[in-house]
């Protein structure tokens, strides 16, 4: 929709495409990444009975800008014995893998990057680039501990993609569509239609689906938490464990890229969970624009609902980080393979059976 409007505005396909792909990035994600760093510090501080950054700006609002300046002016150290091309390419891959996913996420009914039919699979495929970036970072650092850390991170991310995909398969089976835009449109009008509460099905089918949907939401939330390397699954970036993480040898802007990629990834997976289960950009009660008759208000309302849902899930991710201790590596793998995957398979089977009813 955005694309059509821009095409009608500019008349050139390329220009419209260009602006449409850049818009989510600049309008939303970069400010979000800036905001998220500050939010993490403030949330963690208030949970720990302290204040967090207070001196830069009013109550520390300009803290991230100060951080960006600091990272920009740092010396860019490249160790001599590394593979230069891989070393320089790795943060770029991680960054691209996280940010490219935003091309298909529906921010509102009007503002989507592109409306391709492959929605979710595109996101899963592109975030696989992050694994390649991490492995390259670990290998090119020429540091045996970074390599070990990178291999663990890669093993973790790949294992936890399986429950994610299985739950996504469940949703696809239930609704019959891959496109995130269609999924959001399907959960319209009232929160009773949200997929976590059974979706647009009716009658007994809907009631039976609810416990499996709730369990599925928990499973996908946990496994995507592991994909973005957040506590309790943050072995790759933990400082108090023995091996240092895959981004030890990076400094300055390259480190900032890993950092920003992590926060963008966090929002991307929260957005996916919100779209899959919680109605995407749909409001739970109906629109103010419909009530007042102002049609142009609706996309703005949808955008604000989507942002608040995404931010809420990001907040829960931060909340979990500051509450829970860390898993040990073998326990992490055991948790995935012995608990999450069997449950996901069972949910897939049972939801499939129920949807045949």
């Amino acid at each position, binding site marked *: 929709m955005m694309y059509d409007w821009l095409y009608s505005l500019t008349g050139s396909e390329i220009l419209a495409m260009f602006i449409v792909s850049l818009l989510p990035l600049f309008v939303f994600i970069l400010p979000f990444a800036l905001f998220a760093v500050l939010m993490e510090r403030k949330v963690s501080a*208030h949970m720990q*009975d*302290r*204040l967090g950054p*207070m001196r830069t700006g009013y109550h520390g609002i300009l803290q991230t800008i100060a951080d960006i300046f600091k990272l920009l002016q740092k010396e860019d150290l490249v160790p001599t014995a590394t593979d230069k091309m891989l070393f320089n390419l790795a943060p770029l891959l991680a960054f691209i893998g996280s940010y490219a996913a935003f091309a298909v996420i529906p921010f509102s009914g009007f503002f989507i990057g592109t409306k391709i039919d492959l929605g979710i699979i595109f996101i899963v495929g592109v975030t696989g680039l992050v694994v390649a970036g991490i492995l390259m970072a670990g290998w090119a650092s020429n540091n045996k501990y970074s390599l070990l850390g990178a291999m663990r991170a890669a093993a973790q991310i790949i294992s936890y993609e399986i429950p994610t995909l299985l739950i996504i398969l469940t949703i696809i089976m239930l609704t019959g569509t891959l496109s995130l835009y269609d999924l959001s449109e399907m959960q319209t009008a009232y929160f009773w239609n949200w997929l976590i509460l059974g979706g647009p099905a009716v009658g007994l089918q809907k009631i039976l689906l609810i416990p499996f949907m709730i369990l599925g939401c928990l499973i996908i939330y946990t496994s995507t938490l592991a994909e973005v390397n957040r506590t309790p699954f943050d072995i790759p970036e933990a400082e108090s464990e023995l091996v240092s993480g895959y981004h030890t040898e990076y400094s300055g802007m390259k480190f900032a890229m890993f950092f920003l990629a992590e926060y963008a990834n966090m929002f991307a997976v929260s957005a996916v969970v919100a779209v899959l289960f919680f109605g995407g950009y749909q409001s739970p009660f109906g629109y103010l624009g419909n009530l007042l008759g102002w049609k142009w208000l609706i996309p703005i309302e949808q955008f604000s609902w989507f942002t608040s849902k995404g931010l809420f899930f990001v907040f829960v991710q931060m*909340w*979990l980080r500051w*509450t*829970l201790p860390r898993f040990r590596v073998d326990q992490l793998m055991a948790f995935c393979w012995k*608990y999450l995957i069997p449950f996901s398979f069972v949910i897939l089977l049972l939801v499939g059976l129920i949807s045949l009813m």
Partner: protein
Amino acid sequence: MRTYFLNFWQGLYTILIGMKVTFRHLFIPAVTIQYPSVKPQMPERERNRLYVNMDDCIGCDQCARACPVNCIEIETVKSIPGEDLGTTSNGKKKALWVTTFNIDFAKCCYCQLCVFPCPTECIYMTDVYEFSEFQRENLVFDFVTLLPEERIQKKKNFEELQAKKEAEKIAAAKKLAEEKAAAQAKPIEPKPDNPGNPDNKEETK
């Protein structure tokens, strides 16, 4: 099989309890204060930087001896008679000029052992705790109120007095030795049969 599901349920349940605790703490006001703009109140017995009130110091060296790290350096000079150094606040008359009283705060361990033996309570701990310096030498505090020339003067006075006393002692000792020698010596009389005595006129005839 049962432990399998029990593990899962327990895991979920304890995580939720932990999250409840942390969520509750979001709304508890912070216990920290914003330091340089707001300073905490120091209790009255606080042990921070030392201060010496030189008007009361009698130079007894008790504090230097009590210090476990030897950070107090005291040098005193006896006063010459006739000089009035004044009295301390509890009425004692001072008899020594204190020419050096250095405390090296880089060495001081803030243990308060020097405060207790002082008879006039002139050394005590204040509430100053922000006194960092860029150079280590600036942390050696000199508490003496005499000017450098005065210190040299007092020392010279004392040395002169010493020298005078020494000289007097040597002079007195020499005089005593002379008197003793004089008292022991007999008067010498010319002998009549002493040849060559010019007074002896009978011989040269």
